[in-house]
């Protein structure tokens, strides 16, 4: 079980200098075990600052973060331990690879957990399987692989700690469509098989719309919307007002709406769009 709760979270960068900046303010959110949460928001909306609080990398200026009811900043030991419970994959994680071999790099996290050799081996193989990294690559240098492979190995490095909560910051940034789809599939598989909570930060509305149970929209350092994709995308105008895009199918539905064609409630996946248009066709033929 891994439940995350943030209460009155506030973070100010560079306190006491002319560069002082409130990054997030008054964030209250409860993420129950097993949920797949999508976090969306503009650059500078505070979403990256927020996720770095969840594993104690940043300390809140005010408020607190609890993991399973335990304040994660209560002591140094707890903060250290929470890193293994809440796995954070940074943006462009391939730049953190450093070991001589792929195997050793994935094993870095489990090693820091002070596991036995056997357990480490088990964790590494399992993580590699989740992200679709072939065991043949284990003895290669991570630096000589392709960008997509590097990204997967870096994600495996975090998954290998078997975190109850997996947070990924823009895991698909800069990948080709096929690579994106694969990574998202890996994340869905991981969540299905382990029942972990997954928090996915993304610019791509289409990605999060397809796989998330819940969306949290950040704007100007606060939570702007919080609900199911259905609820969030039923208010597309507000999303475009704060400078966010909407998924392609929603954009089409909005365009139709402007031309007087109503597709009913929120449409945010291709399947929903197709069935809504089909239903429309049936209704129209009756006239």
């Amino acid at each position, binding site marked *: 079980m891994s439940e995350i709760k943030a209460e009155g979270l506030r973070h100010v*960068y*560079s306190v*006491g*200098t*002319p560069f002082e900046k409130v990054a997030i303010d008054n964030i209250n959110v409860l993420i129950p075990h097993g949920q797949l949460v999508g976090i969306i928001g503009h650059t500078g909306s505070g979403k990256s600052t927020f996720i*770095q609080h969840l*594993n104690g*990398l940043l300390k809140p200026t005010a408020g607190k973060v609890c993991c399973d009811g335990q304040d994660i900043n209560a002591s140094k030991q707890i903060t*250290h331990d929470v*890193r*293994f419970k809440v*796995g*954070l*994959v*940074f943006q462009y*994680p391939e*730049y*953190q*690879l*450093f070991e001589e071999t792929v195997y050793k790099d994935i094993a*870095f*996290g489990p090693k*820091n*957990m002070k596991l036995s050799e056997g357990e480490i081996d088990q964790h590494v193989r399992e993580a590699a399987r989740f992200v679709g990294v072939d065991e043949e690559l284990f003895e290669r240098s991570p*630096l000589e692989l392709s960008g997509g492979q590097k990204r997967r190995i870096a994600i495996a*490095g*975090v998954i290998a*700690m078997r975190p109850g909560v997996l947070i990924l910051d823009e895991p698909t940034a800069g990948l080709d469509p096929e690579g994106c789809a694969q990574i998202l599939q890996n994340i869905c598989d991981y969540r299905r098989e382990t029942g972990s909570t997954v928090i996915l930060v993304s610019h791509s509305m289409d990605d999060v719309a397809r796989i998330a149970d819940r969306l949290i929209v950040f704007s100007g350092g606060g939570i702007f919307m919080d609900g199911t994709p259905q609820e969030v995308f039923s208010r597309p105008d507000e999303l475009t007002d704060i400078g966010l895009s909407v998924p392609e199918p929603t954009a089409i539905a909005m365009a139709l709406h402007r031309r007087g064609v109503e597709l009913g409630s929120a449409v945010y996946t291709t399947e929903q769009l197709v069935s809504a248009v089909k239903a429309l066709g049936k209704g129209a033929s009756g006239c």
Partner: protein
Amino acid sequence: MLKDVTLGQYFPGNTVVHRLDPRTKIILVIVYIVALFNAYNWYSYALVAAVTLGCIAASRIKPKTIMKGLKPLIIVIVLTALLNLFYTTGTPIVPGWIITWEGLKKAVLLVARIIMLIAGTFLLTYTTSPIALTDGLEILLNPLKKIKVPVHEMSMALRFIPTLTEETDKIMSAQKARGADFETGSLLQRARALLPILVPLFVSSFRRADELAVAMESRCYHGGEGRTRMKTLKYANRDLWALLLGAAFLAGVIALKKFGL
């Protein structure tokens, strides 16, 4: 974390100190350091301290900010004070004590010298943007080009310090997220713990340098020879006044030393 290190940080402002030409400021800092090392008694120290405080006041930089910059050097300062306090021979303050009047004086003056040295140089980086600073430095070092010192390239390298700091910060966070521990353990363990930061940092520095070289070449860069600037530095009247005051200040300190006041 690393971003909190104030060394080399710029605080924008619009005071006389901010507006001075970076070349003037660099020269004045050198003059200041020479003066500081020529000061050796209470009077000359008082003069240097007055000038330091005057400059800080004119720059409107909060004294607290300057103090924050001193923090990383606190150990050096304390050690200097203690060593001088205990290892100077002379008349004891209380008969039989190891602490002497001479030691006390030396300790106080040396600590004052270190603090003023740091405060003075910090004032330069606090009030000058990194770009102005490197431009000024490049022009001042221009004569060295004659003896094949890569002055232009050196100033270009300075530009990367903030970028690399940011990069280090990012990599550190990423490794900490995987449970890396940089704070505990023996010296050897802590040195080993740096490996996961240094390797990615080197890799990304080379990649960045490569990308930058390509980007510059594709914009027809061919070295610093004959290159003009969008913003050329110009001396104003205030620079002349500042330099004159600086010269007067140095002369004053040297005079105090000469006449043994």
